[in-house]
């Protein structure tokens, strides 16, 4: 029976080829959107690892520094602390002490690349033949309480680390799982063995830290301890203050904070932003992209579906006589349905097979590294179901038309 459908479809390969290409193109469109959507929902459901409510993020720009992006390869020579940097750190300490006094401000911390801030500090090196890649931030001890991190193993760094001979770091759960599978991450060193600096030793693991919000995928994250009471060459001035405020704190307090900061640093610049707003802004492009892609794909599919219905309809009218003969020879209505839909399913299978062959290259060749294979598989699965449903839906009316053919009328007409 299937062989028979194959033969029928093959006999009209020219005409069917175009229909198949259309199904293929539709499959690719659905695949792109389905993969994007799966990827996003997958990410969206992972925990952020922190609470973004009631946090103010203050960018502090010291006089005469630029908003530059610095990428270093290798480590700079050890040298004495830079006096400019020492003065900056001293000033920042004063600022932090000053705004801590203000009513409504609960906890004050300092960081270099806080959540939703547009600066990132990435690092990678080879260790034991494996690439260790992560994003890193240097934060003060109080950052954990501002962000409300959950420490799942070990501890967050604190004043108890003042005397230790290593650089205490806290890493995110996903980093711990990737770097030390099955082993206890606490006490392990993560720094580059070729780097002759104080080793970075893991003292704790937090549940998660997804810096840029719900939509992007999570990077491995490392927090290093920033000390504002001591200046060595690895201790540069933070450029953000991250502050937890009492819920319901208003713009009046914000103005008060800004005035205090301006009093402390007359030639500095400050930007106060609320983390909940920053999160909205960070999420907006993703929402626009997702909505836009879905609407576009929807319209494209509707169009392809209507077109396909038209083509099939025309085909059926063309084949009135053939169907008439079959009916006269005793084919039931069910047989006719099966024939029209069977041919269509055959075409669809052919089209999507080529489509799957094309898109399977993405996970195999790792075109887009950060999308996992599972996401692609779900994407392919969803698109297969969608395309089969679409073609079946398009075939229903034309095949029903075919069953209405009266053998006698069909055989008479010329």
């Amino acid at each position, binding site marked *: 029976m299937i062989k028979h459908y194959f033969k029928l479809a093959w006999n009209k390969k020219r005409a069917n080829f175009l229909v198949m290409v*259309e199904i293929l193109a539709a499959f690719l469109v659905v695949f792109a959107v389905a993969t994007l959507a799966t990827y996003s929902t997958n990410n969206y459901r992972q925990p952020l690892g922190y609470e973004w409510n009631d946090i103010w993020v203050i960018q502090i720009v010291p*006089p005469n520094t630029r908003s530059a992006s610095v990428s270093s390869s*290798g480590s700079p020579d050890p040298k004495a602390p830079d006096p400019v940097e020492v003065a900056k750190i001293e000033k920042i300490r004063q600022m932090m002490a000053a705004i801590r006094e203000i009513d409504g401000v609960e906890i004050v911390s300092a960081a270099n690349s806080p959540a939703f801030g547009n600066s990132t500090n990435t690092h990678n090196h080879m260790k034991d033949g494996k690439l260790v890649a992560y994003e890193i931030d240097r934060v003060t001890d109080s950052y954990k309480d501002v962000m409300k991190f959950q420490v799942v193993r070990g501890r967050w760094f604190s004043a108890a680390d003042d005397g230790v001979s290593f650089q205490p770091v806290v890493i995110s759960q996903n980093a711990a799982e990737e770097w030390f599978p099955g082993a206890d991450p606490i006490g392990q060193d993560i720094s580059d063995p070729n780097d002759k600096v104080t080793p970075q030793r893991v003292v704790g693991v937090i549940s998660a830290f997804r810096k840029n919000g719900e939509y992007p995928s999570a990077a491995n994250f490392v927090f290093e301890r920033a000390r504002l009471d001591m200046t060595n060459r690895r201790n540069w001035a933070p450029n953000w203050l991250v502050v937890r405020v009492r819920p319901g704190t208003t713009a009046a307090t*914000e103005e008060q904070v800004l005035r205090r900061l301006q009093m402390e640093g007359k030639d500095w610049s400050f930007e106060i932003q609320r983390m909940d707003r920053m999160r909205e802004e960070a999420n907006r492009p993703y929402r626009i992209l997702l909505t836009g892609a879905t609407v576009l794909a929807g319209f494209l599919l509707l169009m392809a579906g209507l077109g396909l219905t038209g083509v099939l309809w025309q085909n059926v009218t063309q084949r009135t006589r053939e169907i008439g003969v079959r009916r006269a020879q005793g084919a039931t209505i069910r047989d006719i349905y099966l024939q029209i839909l069977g041919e269509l399913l055959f075409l669809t299978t052919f089209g999507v097979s080529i489509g799957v062959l094309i898109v399977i290259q993405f996970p195999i060749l790792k075109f887009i590294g950060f999308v996992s294979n599972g996401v692609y598989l779900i994407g392919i699965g969803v698109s297969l179901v969608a395309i089969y449903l679409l073609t079946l839906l398009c075939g229903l009316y034309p095949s029903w038309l075919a069953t209405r053919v009266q053998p006698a009328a069909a055989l008479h007409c010329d």
Partner: protein
Amino acid sequence: MFTHYLKTAYKVFLRRKFFTGISLFAISFTLIVLMVVVSFIDHTFGAMAPEKKLDRMLGVFIMTMRGENMIMSSGPGYGFLDRYCRNIPGVEKISFCTEPRLAQSYWNGEKIKSELKRTDGAFWEILDFTFLEGGPYSDTDDRNAAAVAVINEATRRKFFGGESAVGKTIEADGQRFRVVGVVANVPVFRRMSYADIWVPNSTIKSPGYKTETLGPFNALILARSRADFPLIKSEFASRARQAELPDPKQFQTLAGEAETFFEFMSRILNGGPEWEQSRPNRLMFALLLGMGLFMMLPAINLINLNVSRILERSSEIGVRKAFGASSWTLVGQFVAENVLLTLVGGLIGFVGAILTLRAITESGVFPYADFQMNYRIFTYGFGLTLFFGLLSGVYPAWKMSRLHPVKALKGGTR
């Protein structure tokens, strides 16, 4: 003869309203999407107020300083620009301005966020702002560090309601400025001119910017004519190469280019500022490829519909062939019919695009964006329509012309 074709086409379209409907839907939807895309591109790269002289403009947006193990990319600094770029041959005017930065003001207990851009006097001569009241500040104001500002209409509304603003004082980022002019809002897409508040460069809080090699600045260059571009580009590049660097131990070379905004964007999208070469052709190719891919599904859809509709008209074709019409005449007729249909679809598409653009403008997703139809978008849209009509019409027409007259007269298809 032509009116005769038109009549035939009209009758054919009316005979199968369902098919005509699907075709029109497909064509107009495709064109709406493409025209919205074209309009975004045009609003980003096209010459439009205040950047009316864009075809004679170059900019220096990003520069790279390299050392043995450090690479630093940022905008050029004022120090470098002022020292090396004042007298480049072929330049009619040059302006140094910062990139806009978020500046906050507290006004009657409310927080106002604005984008603040610092510029010199030449900025107002290179760009054509529409002044609603007052006027620009001058180079003399910039030299004297006059605390004056030009604000846009939206900022005037935020600070003063609907009242006149000239002569009044506003506060931004802890500084006070006297308003000297109010301009119409500049859309966020105008990268060179966009801001809410413009103030003189010399109001930067500390004077250190005057010696910076890299910094938050951009240079806007107005050339005498487009023919001077190569001269200006090579002169600028060689001056950057020869510039004296502040810390020769850390950084040895400085590189940067005077380029159009399109070249700058293609450099960034091509792998960041360190990428030595800007490849505008690549960005152009990517844009065209993207549009082509998007057009693929609708085009195949339309081809399929057209091919199956030919069969309906086989007897007409048979008669025409039997009476001596050449294949070319038939191809011409069918392509013309298809282009006619596409033009009708294009008309609907234009109306749809205008409505969509208006909806996007009103949604406020893009600050101050005002998507208007202009002659460039119209021309591109018309070109796209014709291209789409030909693309989807040629294959079916060729197929139709190949029908054998005898078979066609009998109503056969192969």
